[in-house]
């Protein structure tokens, strides 16, 4: 373990760590453009120069390519170092178009930040001397490139080579005419293309989805988890609900990946990145609904739950536990599944209950992040034993039995059966089933024919925890209130349970989670507060090795 001094403060760092990372341990930022901990070191921006004294010899070195060594004395804040950075910054700003007022990156741009901290100089270059390059280039389905703003740090190029392996980008031309472009005949079109916008230190690469939507300083940021697949990439939800003159329905402005060494490192896939559109999609259900006898009447949640409790109770009394079936889903959170378990399995002894079905869509799986399983919590459903028991049927048999009319009451959570069944089977299901209760967030073919529909709050409108495929329990946070009369699923189960004699009455998600932790083996020892920002492993799951780290750099959490 090298022991060195940075700006007079001693620090012990792991062997092989470079000076930028070592300084981070002391919360000292060494300015840089081209260095990114997840990518190889190229040392081309020259912004991270620091003064290094070792063995009495002083020299200037770049922080990214200098390994911390025993007895090193590093100065990051001296006048000489400051002047060095300032001169490099001046080179960068020489031809900069200064279009910050219309640049999406303004507010989170390293050129701006370092200009404020190091530059504050007047330009020595006349306006007509500025060189012009391509602007507003459509380089792919998700990204727009502005070459004039580019600082040629090559982070995006290295990302496309080293992480996705698609190599769509390159620096073309020679010397002062160097320009970032796509390789001829190729588009920046891969499953992770949005990440190049995250790692671009300036506004050269901007996200088509976010362009001109909000100034970044108006947005609020909530640490959360993507629910698009079973990996559960850590994300930041950037949201803004006060300035709704534009896109009034759009509450989430964008998702950004959040560093978690064990799950997604710095990255996330495009599918997850743009999945937030569903939260404010036009077909969101915002009120409970009665389809059959309703005639436009908007019932209260309590009215619907009372009717559902009646139907369930009378079916159980008349025909026994075999007359009720629950098509649950592993898209529900741990808390949802816990109360589902308490109510239907523990209390009502329903045997026909399952979460896994053949009709569930599978995604594309790759070596990077994407998982074929598109539900965020299958591991949780497994741990909480949401599965058929006794004579109960499972999976597709359960659905087939429902179509044949074996059940009097059918409770469906989220699944869009109209996509899973043929039109004939769907009609049959409707005709053969006495009562269908449907809990969903979006309108679809089933919500149009179910007897009662209850609106569910989505992941961004509630707190929850999910167990990813590795067995890591991670929590989402709640940026804003649910749409309309929507409620989190666990609350609906609790309200329904109270009408059916279930004793549960939790007042918050943490209370549910802590009860869960006390009940199920895998979650033993986990409490809501212990989950923190990066989650905790189930005690039944081995600590996973996420994947080979691409860099030789050690990766501290920051």
């Amino acid at each position, binding site marked *: 373990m090298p022991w060195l001094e940075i700006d007079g403060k001693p620090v012990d760092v792991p062997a092989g760590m470079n000076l930028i990372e070592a300084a981070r341990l002391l919360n000292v930022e060494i300015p840089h453009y081209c260095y990114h901990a997840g990518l190889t*070191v*190229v*040392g*081309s*921006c*020259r*912004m991270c*120069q620091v003064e290094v004294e070792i063995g009495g010899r002083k020299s*200037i070195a770049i922080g990214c*390519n200098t390994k911390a060594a025993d007895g090193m004395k590093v100065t990051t804040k001296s006048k000489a170092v400051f002047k*060095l950075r300032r*001169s*490099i910054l*001046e*080179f*960068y700003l*020489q*031809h900069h178009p200064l279009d910050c007022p219309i640049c999406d990156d303004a507010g989170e741009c390293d050129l701006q930040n370092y200009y404020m901290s190091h530059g504050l100089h007047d330009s*020595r*270059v006349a306006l007509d*001397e500025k*060189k012009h390059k391509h602007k507003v280039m459509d380089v792919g389905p998700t990204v727009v490139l502005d070459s004039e703003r580019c*600082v*040629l740090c090559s982070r995006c190029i290295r990302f496309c080579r080293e992480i996705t392996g698609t190599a769509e980008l390159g*620096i073309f*031309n*020679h*010397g*002062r*005419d*160097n320009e970032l472009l796509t390789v001829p005949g190729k588009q920046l079109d891969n499953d992770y293309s949005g990440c190049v916008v995250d790692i671009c230190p300036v506004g050269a690469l901007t996200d088509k989805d976010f362009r001109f939507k909000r100034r970044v300083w108006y947005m609020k940021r909530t640490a959360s988890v993507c629910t698009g697949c079973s990996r559960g990439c850590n994300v930041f939800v950037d949201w803004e609900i006060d300035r709704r003159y534009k896109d009034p329905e759009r509450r989430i402005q964008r998702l950004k990946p959040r560093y978690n060494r064990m799950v997604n490192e710095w990255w996330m896939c495009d599918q997850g990145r743009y999945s937030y559109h569903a939260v404010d999609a036009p077909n969101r259900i915002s009120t409970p609904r009665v389809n059959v006898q309703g005639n436009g009447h908007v019932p209260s949640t309590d009215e619907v739950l009372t009717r559902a409790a009646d139907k369930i109770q009378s079916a159980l009394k008349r025909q026994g536990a075999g007359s009720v079936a629950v098509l649950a889903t592993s898209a529900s959170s741990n808390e949802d599944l816990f109360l589902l378990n308490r109510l239907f399995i523990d209390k009502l002894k329903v045997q026909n209950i399952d979460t896994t079905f053949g009709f569930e869509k599978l995604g594309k799986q790759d070596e990077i992040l994407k998982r074929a399983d598109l539900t965020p919590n299958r591991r949780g459903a497994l741990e909480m034993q949401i599965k058929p028991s006794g004579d109960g049927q499972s999976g597709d048999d359960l659905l087939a039995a429902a179509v044949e009319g074996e059940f009097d009451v059918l409770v469906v959570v989220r699944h869009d059966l109209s996509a899973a069944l043929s039109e004939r089977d769907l009609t049959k299901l409707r005709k053969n089933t006495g009562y269908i209760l449907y809990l969903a967030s979006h309108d679809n073919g089933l919500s149009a024919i179910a007897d009662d529909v209850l609106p569910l709050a989505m992941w961004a409108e509630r707190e929850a925890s999910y167990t990813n495929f590795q067995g890591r329990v991670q929590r989402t946070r709640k940026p804003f209130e649910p749409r309309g009369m929507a409620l989190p699923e666990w609350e609906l189960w609790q309200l329904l349970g109270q009408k059916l004699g279930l004793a549960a009455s939790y007042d918050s998600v943490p209370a549910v989670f802590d009860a869960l932790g006390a009940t199920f083996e895998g979650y033993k020892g986990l409490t809501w507060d212990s989950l923190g920002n990066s989650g905790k492993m189930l005690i039944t799951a081995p600590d996973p090795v996420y994947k080979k780290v691409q860099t030789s750099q050690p990766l501290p959490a920051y």
Partner: protein
Amino acid sequence: MAANGNLLISRNFAVENMASIDVALKNGAYDQLKRAVKMKPEEVTELVKASGLRGHGGAGFSAGTKWGFIPKDKFPRYVTVNGDESEPGTCKDRLILERDPHLLIEGALICAYAVQAERVYIYIRGEYFYPTKVTAEAVKQAYAKGFAGKNILNSGWSCSVHMHNGAGAYICGEETGLIESMEGKKGWPRLKPPFYPAAIGLYGAPTIVNNVETLAFVPRVMEIGPEKFAALGTPKNGGTALYSLSGHVNNPGVYELPMGTPLMDLIHKFGGGIRNGHKLKAVIPGGSSSHILTAEECENLPLDFESVASRGSMLGSAAVMVIDETVSIPKLMHWMVRFYAHESCGQCTPCREGCDWLLRLSKKFIDGTARKRDIDDMWELADNIDGKTICALGAAVAWPTKSYLVKFRHEFEAVCRN
């Protein structure tokens, strides 16, 4: 081409048809390779080390020491001949490639034997069509006679020789840029450390990169012995060097002279003096990237690495450019900066942005729109490039610029508007 008696590499330059192997063999080509393969590889390295042979590509690094940097247990190993002679003023390597390619091939193979390399790459700049043709033919002939290929001269050691042409970039003369270019990538110099390709070079393997002239000296070092070779020059600077003399002298050309030959001797005795009786104004002693020397600084200056360095410049590739009183230094600087602005590879920021900026400022002195402030601005910009870049070529533009501005400031001030 005139020279004095101590001829080593240029000895056979005047021999008719020397590029043909039959003629070359009659003149003793490959004799030293035959001797070398009977020695132990380490003995060859020691011999070269003892001779004090230094790199003639620019840095003047001891050749034998460089060969000794090869890690003991890492194979394969490569030898790369740097024939990307692009420094303005330098024109010595092409003579070797054109007139005695077998000397180079022999030297490269001796080097390859000394470090036990399995391949020799001869990298020649793209613009050298004729030298490439001649050298490629010579390589073919060497193969035919068994000097290259499998089991060379029944020594049990095999080494192939390959030709590779650059695409015309100054930066590919930088050894790691050259390696990148040979690997088929853009010729962008590699980040240091690792400092020497001897540890991690071509395709990640240990690689010796030596200049054409340096390797051409190797057979001669073996022939006359290290002591005699070292005795030719000054202490620390063994043997002779090919001086590329250009500029305002009566007899420009390439001269092979012992290291440490006085600069004034080169100009007056061999170069025939300044043209048309003009006065000497300045000399650029080691290619365009070296600091300029004023006429006074040129007096009593022996041309060897240490002496030139002691005057604040460098011998570099020994390309001596003579400038007489008719030359405007601001114009000279503009010419020089234009070259570097065109050749900057653009990888790291100070050089990419700085060279372009320097070019715009130096143009002002030509156009007559410059102000005195611009002199200081230029010096500051050059200083901001100097030593802040990945490769040494950032300094290659900064050094001359700074020296012109400091040593001839009055000329710049004379063309300023205020």
